[in-house]
């Protein structure tokens, strides 16, 4: 019941993100979408995923998108050309067919059935063994940090690479005159709207 309401709100928010023309509003709506997604995960008892979604999706991503908006200063897009275009019928037909196919596929899937084939293989081991192997009740942590330690190690390396990329691409060295704009160290101040 609550899950259905959340999914409905998710769909509405997704449409709103696509439809709204103000990029700042779209950013805030994306944050709301992430928060609703976190609530949906919580409703499914997937607390670790919900936690990550709330912290990263609704928190950091929103801040970084707002920062990017302030940098580019572009707040609205495509208001004029959108009115001139009508409905793209072949595209609408294609996405409708794809949506029906996906819905059919999901309808057929044994969701939430503990006797379904995917839950009968190694899944049972990974659910039952963490408390025995490591004395740790949170099986997600054991899976991420111990059973799948390689994956998490290289995920950490990927995050480090992201930070290194930001430093290499965007950092200005104050002592290097070539990287400074002619007007001084600080470029134009971020635009503010009243």
């Amino acid at each position, binding site marked *: 019941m609550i899950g259905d309401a959340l999914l409905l709100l998710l769909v509405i928010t997704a449409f709103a993100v696509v439809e709204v023309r103000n990029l700042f509003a779209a950013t805030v709506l994306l944050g709301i979408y992430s928060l609703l997604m976190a609530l949906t995960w919580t409703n499914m008892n997937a607390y670790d995923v919900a*936690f990550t979604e709330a*912290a*990263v999706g609704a928190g*950091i991503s929103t*801040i970084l998108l707002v920062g990017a908006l302030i940098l580019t200063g572009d707040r609205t897009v495509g208001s004029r050309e959108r009115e001139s275009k009508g409905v793209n019928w072949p595209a609408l037909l294609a996405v409708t067919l794809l949506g029906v196919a996906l819905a059919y596929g999901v309808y057929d899937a044994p969701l939430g059935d503990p006797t379904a084939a995917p839950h009968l293989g190694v899944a049972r081991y990974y659910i039952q063994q963490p408390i025995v*192997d490591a004395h740790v009740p949170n099986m*997600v942590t054991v899976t991420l940090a111990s059973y799948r330690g390689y994956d998490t190690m290289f995920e950490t390396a990927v995050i480090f690479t992201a*930070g290194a990329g*930001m430093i290499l691409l965007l950092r200005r060295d104050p002592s290097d005159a070539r990287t400074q704009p002619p007007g001084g160290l600080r470029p134009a101040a*971020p635009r503010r709207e009243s």
Partner: protein
Amino acid sequence: MSQPPPQEHRPGFDDADNVVLTKLAALLIPFILIYGFYVQVHGDFGPGGGFQAGVILASAYILYALVHGVRRAQRLLPRKITDVTAPLGVVIYAGVGVVTLLQGGHLLDYDVLDPQHTQHAQEWGMFLVEAGVGLTVASVMATIFNEIAEQ
């Protein structure tokens, strides 16, 4: 934190005169930090872990930077520190793997850290690698915000 450096007024991200915001941030930031550390060390028993804790800790820094300005935030947490701690987290994680290799086990097979008590060894191994993850994530998130905010 104790004595605020002299204020130079700059527009944009360095705008920091709002009493409401500064007082609210001063109230919130200690709790955000404690919650971040709690999530970091309690990841074995509750939801969370190094990744989430790193993001929460970085959000405390970002809140401070949004309220007080990036320059003052960087006096608190200089770029030199985050530039070192970001790779250090990866080194800690990989270092645990190297130690398990040297002890004669497989890479990141924590059992060999304490063969008599493998459950303890698992807990220790996970604690250490999660610490590495948290360190890297917090540093990188702060770095990304810094580099965007300084443009």
